[in-house]
């Protein structure tokens, strides 16, 4: 039985959809997932190496090493975005390069480069956090909610 969507289409449109489905290139989902897994994993391995570097050579403990590690990784990805390397990595790995924290640096700098022609204030300044702004907003808000829940659980003696 044809669905509502198909009912509203003409025969010509349905024929066209069939033709389009026949020629549509299938997305290599598994291949993309494997690529994302390995590249994302590699970025995490580099992050782990950076955190060991800070633990080994500086006075950071396992708990406090997160901040400098994240800052370093974001800085690296910003530099690589500026040199045009991270874009290629993003094309190859997709979510593998966008999901780790390095994707945040990429989002900031690529927006800044894109709007550079509109000037420093309204172009770069106004659009720099166009993509990354939502990450910061929801990150801060969810951290607030989690902290609130934890505080309440500690107050009630659950934790």
């Amino acid at each position, binding site marked *: 039985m044809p669905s509502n969507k198909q009912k509203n289409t003409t025969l010509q449109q349905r024929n066209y959809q069939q033709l389009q489905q026949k020629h549509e290139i299938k997305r290599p989902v598994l291949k993309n997932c494997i690529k994302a897994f390995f590249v994302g994993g590699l970025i995490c391995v580099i992050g782990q190496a950076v955190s*060991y570097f800070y633990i*080994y050579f500086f006075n*950071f*403990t*396992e708990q406090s090493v997160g901040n400098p590690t994240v800052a370093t990784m974001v800085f690296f990805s910003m530099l690589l975005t500026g*040199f045009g390397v991270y874009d*290629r990595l993003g094309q190859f790995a997709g979510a593998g390069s966008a999901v780790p924290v390095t994707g945040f640096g990429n989002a900031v700098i690529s927006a800044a480069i894109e709007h550079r022609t509109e000037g420093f204030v309204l172009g770069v300044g106004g659009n720099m956090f166009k993509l990354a702004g939502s990450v910061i907003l929801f990150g801060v808000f969810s951290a607030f909610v989690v902290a609130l829940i934890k505080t309440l659980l500690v107050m009630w003696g659950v934790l």
Partner: protein
Amino acid sequence: MITFYRFILFACLILLSACSNNEPVKDSQLALMKTTNPKPVIISNKKHSDRVEEIKKDVSSHPELYDVAVVKGKKDTLVVYKVKHLHRFRMKAIEKNVNKMLEEKYPKENFTVSSDYKVFLEAVRLKEHIKSSDFSDQKAEKRFNEIVKMTEDMK
């Protein structure tokens, strides 16, 4: 793409240049990555060596732990361990168990228990410094107190 390959090559060169040193490898150099199992260290009162060995044995008997370092200072006894990877979800519970076991078995001792890699690394470094002749007991005690303070800052 050539820039990318150059970057990879440069990174590999930097990493490999670190391996060219022919000096003997110290335990502390690889303490973050492999099991070092350092011998227990006593800084001031050397007559408690049996007890320190016993503490290490007791803590090592926990199946979730795989590398234990014990350092005994004048007042405190520092116990640092590494937790097996799949048990790291239960770090707090493990720390609580180890603390409880130590306090019950050795009520007179004042224990500082930690599972932090940095504290472990510093304990191994302290052991190596003590082994080298130019490190006095006073210096060792001072460094030991600094390490203990490091664990307190984490709480």
